[in-house]
């Protein structure tokens, strides 16, 4: 399936309230990502990388600005949607890979990967889940629970789950932060190649310059809310 999709982030701002103190995390941030392209987000801890990814997932409400995702000529506006609509949209169109706790511990490897297909009533993708896991070198772990997998294996399962639906947008929040260099390289390769092959937009937050350099575009967030966009 080929996506005709595009992500537009337009002058978004987000702050948190801590008692009487207002902490501004993102201010007037704008960028675009085209179908099949990737963008890496770098910056020091507390610069708002995770907040940005959560905003892109529709998990946090924006204070200002808007995020729109164009899919097959239809535009979904995050500002216009309520929490319920954003949840339904995320379920169908966004994949997410975290640094930790990526898998539901009480589902087997295969069940974890098939979960988005089940949630979206897409039985046609269930066989694809096994194929993906096989391609990712996990064919012998299908019926194991996550607790029996190594960190690298767990992340591979998480990537497989994130790409199963071939979503237009995949978000990865420091997906290699918990891994050794060999596994980091493997996971980064999997992410970038899968997104490229399936025309998925990838937004990846990372501390690693090597991995950031693999993206088409780099976005650097400062400790104070200001951003600079540069081609990789």
């Amino acid at each position: 399936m080929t996506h005709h999709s595009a992500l537009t982030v337009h002058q978004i701002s987000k702050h948190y309230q801590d008692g009487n103190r207002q902490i501004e995390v993102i201010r007037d941030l704008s960028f675009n990502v085209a179908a099949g392209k990737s963008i890496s987000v770098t910056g020091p801890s507390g610069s708002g990388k995770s907040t940005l990814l959560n905003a892109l997932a529709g998990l946090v409400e924006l204070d200002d600005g808007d995020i729109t995702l164009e899919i097959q000529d239809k535009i979904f506006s995050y500002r216009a949607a309520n929490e319920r609509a954003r949840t339904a949209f995320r379920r169908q169109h966004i994949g997410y890979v975290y640094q930790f706790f990526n898998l539901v511990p009480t589902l087997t490897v295969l069940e974890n990967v098939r979960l988005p297909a089940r949630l979206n009533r897409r039985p046609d993708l269930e066989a694809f889940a096994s194929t993906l896991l096989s391609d990712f070198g996990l064919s012998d772990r299908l019926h194991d629970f996550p607790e029996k997998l190594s960190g690298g294996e767990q992340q591979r399962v998480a990537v497989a789950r994130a790409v199963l639906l071939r979503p237009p947008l995949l978000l990865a929040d420091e997906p290699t932060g918990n891994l050794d260099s060999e596994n980091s390289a493997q996971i980064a390769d999997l992410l970038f190649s899968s997104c490229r092959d399936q025309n998925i937009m990838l937004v990846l937050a990372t501390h690693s310059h090597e991995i950031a350099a693999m993206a088409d575009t780099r976005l650097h967030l400062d400790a104070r809310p200001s951003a600079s966009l540069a081609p990789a």
Partner: protein
Amino acid sequence: MIPLALLRFLRRTPWSTAMALVGMALGVASIVSVHLVSASISSRLDGLVPSSLADFSYYLHRENLHTHDYFELRRRWRSGALPTLERLSPVVDETAQIADLSVRVLGIDLLSQLPSGDIPTASGAFAFNGVWVDKSLKDTLSLPINGIIEAPEGTLLSDISVAHDLLDWPDHQLSYIGLVIGQAFAHSLEVAENLLPGFGAGLPIAKPNLDIGPGWQLVNTAEQYPARAFGKSVLFNIAALGMLALLVAWLLIYQVAVSWLRRLWPVFDRLHGLGVEWPHLRNYFLGSIGVIASIAAGLGLILGWWLATKLLTMSVPGNAVALDLSGWVVIKAFGSALAVCLVGGAWAFRRSQRGQPQTLAPLLATLVLLVCGLICVIQPETGLAGGFFAIAVLSLAAGQTIGPLLLRLKRWSSNIGGSYLMRVGVREALWHPAELSVALAGLSLSIATAIGVGLMVDSFRLDFSQMLDHRLKYDVIAEGNPASLEAVIKAPGSVAQASRIQHYRSADIRVDGALVELNVTHMDAFESSRYAHDKRLGDSEVLLSEQAARTLGVLPQETLRILGETMTVAGTFSAFGDLKPRLIVDDQSAIAEAMGAELKMASVAFESNSPKALARALKASSSTLEIRLQSDIRRIALNVFDQTFAITTVLITIALLVAAISVYIAVTTLRLNRQTGRQLLNTLGVNRVEQHLMNLAMGIGLGAVAMIVALPLGVMFGWILCNVINPRAFGWTIELQVSASALLWPCAWGMLAAILAGMLQVGDAEEGAFGGR
């Protein structure tokens, strides 16, 4: 710094703190209410024995007891031949008609003991030939009254010589000799009785080893006062059920302590990493949970007192109930809350710090206890306490199976089918034995008890109803004073309207030293059939209530000496609710003739084609008689039956409620410590409705695990209650009927409790001790 951090933690998690407080307070309230109800009933039962006889633990009877017999015994005691005997005293105990009242006259040796607890009369004079009476006789007797005593209605106490005069007995005649026999562990048993009122009634009664020579019959307090013994047995049943409430409350308090620890553990772990020593952290943990336990104990005391007042008002409607919070109940409330929290908390802390010890000791201990429990079931000599010990052991064993069962179910859980979210929910219920097994044990135990008691009550109700079908063959029953009854059977109105008139005479007699009620009536085939005997009762035959057969140790077709006559036991009959063992003989038997005028008319039964008209006629002819229609008796009997079990139902409901709160606290803690899992599902697009469905599946999973343990355990409880406890407590047998309603209702309530505990999300949004990314 660390106490400050803990205080902030309490402030930031108000709902969890409140739930812990409420949970513990409810646990303590159940402990307090059950204790107060039991103590109140126990005190009322003790009032059935005049205070001057309360010290006696055994009574010696023999035919024509003479003062010579007493002095002979006393000489032997003085010579040291009866070493276990601490005191003995002659007693006259007989009923006399004084001032047209039936008065129980008790004569004791005033030279050796003055009645205790007396209230001086207005005159303040003490007359050696005066009497002490209970308050009902205060203004009705013309005798000089020395004081008012605590005793059943219609009791008069005096010196032996005064009693002889009142009864018109010869000076040498005695009724029996009261004995005070030294008991091992008497002080410990007294403490246990204070902590668990009713506990003593369950202990087996051993015959003391007294070399007193031939012709004597040694009778214990239970045989001497069957009404009190019956009441104590009921009380022991309530007390034993109260022990279950206590156990479930302890489980809840322990669960709160464990949940508290689990929430704080990540903080402790990091503080330890920073160099804070484990003993310091343990003390802070125990300090915080100790504060909560103390506040909860105070709240629980007040709530328990209120609940006990309501329960007693419900069981004895119309009577004013005033309950005092004794030192024992305060000790029990604070002791339970603090001891379980601190000891359980310290143990849980140690386990968290050092990991789960892999040892077979608990399993072996449980196996040994199970064998002991089996012996208690088989051996009737272990008494009521033996039966309840078996139930306690089964509860312990069942509680221990929850953890291993969850581990097995966890391994099996990959086979669960259906929707993935349902799988997640059900597996959540099965995957966390460390967090959930204590709470699930409490829930299983409550459901099992509800099933066991439900099976017993249903079976009992069926047998009771069948007994009423047999007994209530007559249309109208008249009860009241003998003279009015004698008159009514000869009244032309009754004779004209009744197709059959059956009158019953009765008297209390002693058989083998045991006090029994003798009923005499015309035992033709029709009347015999009321007692499950299919033919006319012979002149030398006797029918025994089950209770009498057990007390006297005889079986059908064996013989029994009654008032010097040898009688054959023709059969036994159910007599649920009888306070005393009962014998029935035909009015033509030698015993009936020998008793003569001592037999008093007790009731008259009528068969009639127009019972209502007959009842009206009888009421018109005698205003002093109680006239009841068969249908009224059935209704009243069944109402009394249901009322008897009202307290039981409330106690089980409390245990179930406490168990449900325990599960809720465990589930909430589990969720708070695993918030990241829920966040992940939210990221994947799982909406609120689906999250509720997952919680529903989790609740069903929790309920199902509790059911797996509770169903077989409940049926075992039911069997023990019907076949072990009831025969030992009351002397009657109930045939266990496994009814669907007795199985399904507790399961339904248990499942509902588990589902609510699983689904209730209030407070879930609070921050955990440590936020996840």
